[in-house]
């Protein structure tokens, strides 16, 4: 009997493994399918935001998904640790704070009274932006404060930024590249400069699994992780082929491919990695708590289940993750 | 199975007995004594009119006879059996026509027939057509209720009440809302139909002249609480004309009797309105 494996991802460079995997399935050359065997049917679903994906996990209509750290934390804590587990990393880096070229923001102090856009309320960049603003001495509330943080969908950010309605945008690739290349934005701050304790690395995308599915099919999840590790390696070795595969699939999913310069710049600012970079997640969670997104001290003791990943890495002779 | 012929035929003798019926309406604070120890016997085929001022319990008594309400004490016997529920043997007609606006004329008349077993659709329709012919509305079988005049509506209501062939017809001021001319036509219609179909009729009215014109017997009520005070026999030949001198004489007598019992509110009952 066939097992159906339902997998989610976004149409986004930070989800490159998912996008490329989906594209290969679509072309009938399934990377994952080949490694999971004939008894597994992979169904791909495309989401445009973390909460929708975690909702689908809650509703039991999704088994594995690529998702950013804060939606994962949120979902884990709101379900009291009972619904999801992080089983692997996928991507690191790529976030930056971009300001308009007109010089309205030169120093940190210039942010007072300005509008800073983030992609989504409570998502990774939103938390990072608020935490950074607080560290600079600004008072930031959920819906107000010294700097107005306005969660704005990525697609809206670009025109608003171009019109000058936004004074700064904290977002992630490929949008950083688009802001820089299409709207002459200036990178005010690369987020990796804030991550000294992890050598500039911080998690952008995870692979997350539904707990019940994980308990029923641990072997299947392990096979998926193994396939992903191989895919990550392949992508790193064949960047040009990977970019083409990626862009073809993006065109199918969104009707528009990314312009080559944007894709190239974005690709450079990201690191695909299977390491979930645990230390950075803990800090993100603590930031979220400090800002007020999480009411209680986050308890992440159960969020990881990395034994499968480490087993895969061991088998392949690669270094295990903490 | 009843045949169509039987259905349209006169029925076996029968009578109504109202036996020491009392009824008080209790609201949160107040109690209105509507009927106090009312007894009345109606012969098979008799036409009895109840007159009395507003609020003397005429409608209440009619509802109790119909089985729509229960008396506090006493009982109503129809054919010797106690009345506890409404039934097809005793049909009621109301002041407003109570026709169903979502049905056309013929379906209104057929409503009660459809609840009668042992008749097929064709027979029901024939019965309905017969009664609509009886009230002179052959041409309006498919008309909508709102297209009828007030008098035509009450004619349809009469046909609807007659159609299930009840033994008793209870009529609660059926002509009160009509104009004088229409009313006069209906007086002769109802007399004709009563003679043709031999129904027992209890007819409630405010209008003493109407009562004298229609009834074999006129029963006079007084209010607070509702009591029967006097009864008049009207031995005039039929059909009677409401404008005739004899009817006027009887009605004069009845008005005189009525006025005895209600010195304070003479305008509630008029000899001729």
């Amino acid at each position, binding site marked *: 009997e066939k097992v159906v494996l339902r997998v989610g991802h976004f149409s986004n460079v930070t989800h490159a493994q998912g996008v490329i995997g989906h594209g290969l399935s679509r072309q009938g050359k399934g990377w994952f399918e080949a490694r999971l065997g004939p008894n597994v049917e992979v169904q791909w679903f495309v989401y445009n935001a973390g909460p929708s994906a975690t909702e689908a996990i809650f509703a039991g209509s999704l088994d594995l998904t690529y998702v950013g750290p804060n939606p994962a934390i949120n979902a884990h804590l709101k379900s009291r640790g009972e619904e999801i587990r992080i089983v692997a990393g996928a991507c690191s880096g790529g976030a930056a704070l971009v300001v308009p070229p007109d010089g309205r923001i030169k120093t940190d102090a210039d942010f007072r009274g300005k509008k800073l856009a983030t992609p989504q309320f409570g998502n990774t960049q939103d938390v990072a932006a608020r935490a950074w603003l607080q560290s600079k001495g600004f008072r930031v509330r959920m819906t107000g404060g010294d700097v107005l943080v306005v969660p704005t969908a990525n697609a809206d950010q670009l025109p608003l930024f171009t019109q000058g309605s936004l004074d700064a945008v904290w977002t992630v690739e490929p949008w950083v590249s688009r802001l820089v290349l299409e709207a002459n934005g200036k990178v005010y701050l690369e987020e990796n400069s804030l991550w000294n304790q992890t050598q500039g690395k911080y998690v952008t995308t995870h692979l997350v699994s539904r707990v019940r599915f994980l308990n029923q099919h641990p072997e299947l999840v392990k096979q998926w992780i193994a396939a992903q590790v191989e895919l990550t390696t392949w992508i790193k070795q064949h960047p040009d082929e990977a970019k083409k595969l990626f862009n073809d699939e993006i065109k199918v999913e969104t009707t528009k491919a990314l312009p080559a310069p944007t894709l190239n710049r974005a690709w450079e600012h990201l690191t695909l990695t299977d390491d979930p970079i645990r230390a950075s997640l803990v800090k993100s969670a603590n930031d979220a708590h400090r800002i007020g997104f999480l009411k209680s001290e986050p308890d992440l003791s159960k969020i990881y289940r990395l034994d499968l990943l480490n087993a895969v890495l061991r088998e392949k002779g690669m270094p295990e993750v903490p | 199975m009843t045949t169509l012929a039987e259905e349209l035929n006169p029925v076996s003798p029968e009578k109504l007995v109202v036996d020491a019926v009392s009824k008080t309406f209790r609201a949160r604070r107040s109690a209105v004594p509507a009927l106090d120890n009312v007894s009345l016997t109606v012969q098979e085929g008799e036409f009895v009119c109840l007159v009395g001022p507003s609020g003397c319990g005429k409608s209440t008594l009619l509802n109790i006879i119909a089985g729509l309400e229960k008396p506090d004490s006493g009982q109503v016997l129809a054919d010797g059996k106690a009345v506890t529920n409404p039934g097809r043997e005793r049909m009621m007609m109301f002041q407003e026509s109570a026709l169903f606006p*979502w049905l056309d004329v013929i379906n209104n008349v057929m409503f009660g027939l459809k609840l009668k077993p042992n008749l097929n659709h064709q027979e029901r329709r024939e019965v309905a057509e017969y009664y609509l012919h009886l009230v002179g509305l052959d041409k309006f079988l498919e008309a909508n209720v709102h297209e009828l005049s007030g008098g035509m509506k009450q004619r349809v209501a009469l046909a609807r009440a007659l159609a299930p062939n009840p033994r008793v017809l209870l009529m609660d001021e059926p002509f009160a809302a009509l104009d004088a001319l229409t009313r006069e036509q209906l007086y002769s219609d109802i007399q004709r139909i009563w003679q043709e179909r031999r129904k027992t009729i209890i007819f409630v009215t405010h209008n003493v002249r109407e009562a004298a014109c229609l009834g074999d017997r006129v029963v006079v009520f007084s209010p607070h609480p509702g009591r029967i005070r006097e009864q008049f026999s009207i031995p005039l030949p039929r059909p009677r004309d409401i404008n005739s001198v004899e009817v006027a004489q009887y009605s004069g007598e009845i008005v005189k009797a009525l006025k005895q019992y209600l010195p304070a509110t003479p305008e509630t009952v008029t000899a001729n309105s």
Partner: protein
Amino acid sequence: MKRRLIAALFFLMLLGIWELLCRAKIWSPVMMPEPLAVGEYLWESLRDGTLGQATLVTLRRLLIGYLAGVAIGLPLGLLTARFKTVEDTLGVIALGLQTLPSVCWVPLALLWFGQTEMAMLFVVVMGSVWSVVIATDNGVRTVPPIYARAARTMGSRGLHTWLKVILPAALPFIVSGMKQGWAFAWRSLMAAEIFVTILTGFGLGHLLHYGRELHAMDQIIGIMLVIIAIGLLADKILFSPWEKYLHRRWGTD
């Protein structure tokens, strides 16, 4: 005849001015498409089937959800009208939820059902059911008691009275409640479709949304025209016959 002519002329002039303003670049194409572009878009998307399929998806959601809403709302309304206890409990809830824009159920529906067809149906049902409940309740309460009494003397009892007397007598109210329920359901479905991707099919709302994302003004205006057409047709097909029937029977209007 003359009136029609004037009206037709007016609309033609409107189109002409619109086209002119676009041609003269007074209206930028990102703000307003040329009328011809709208026509072209509609034609294209009709030909390649996008439009037809999206319309089908949307209408299926709407119809199923709406019929479910009516099927649930009618008996509930009868219950609230019949039993005081139901009136005091369910009736109160209905009154409250009736004022709640049903689009507010979207976040909950997504959490409960995920981005599935069920979520959409739930929102549509929530949009229509309370209007139907309240209208039915209201309609039944306004039925003159004399109808039921007349029916009782003719031998009607219990369920027969409800089905053959109370329900038809309340029909004018029920139909207008159903119409309101339809309007609310249609509005909330559009809202949900415009803003939420449903994995099981793209409706008209999605096309509208993508029109915005792509700054394709021709698509936006084109889809809005389609939505207007559907609204007008729904009225003509679903409610006009009922209302005409009721007007003729009851003699209202």
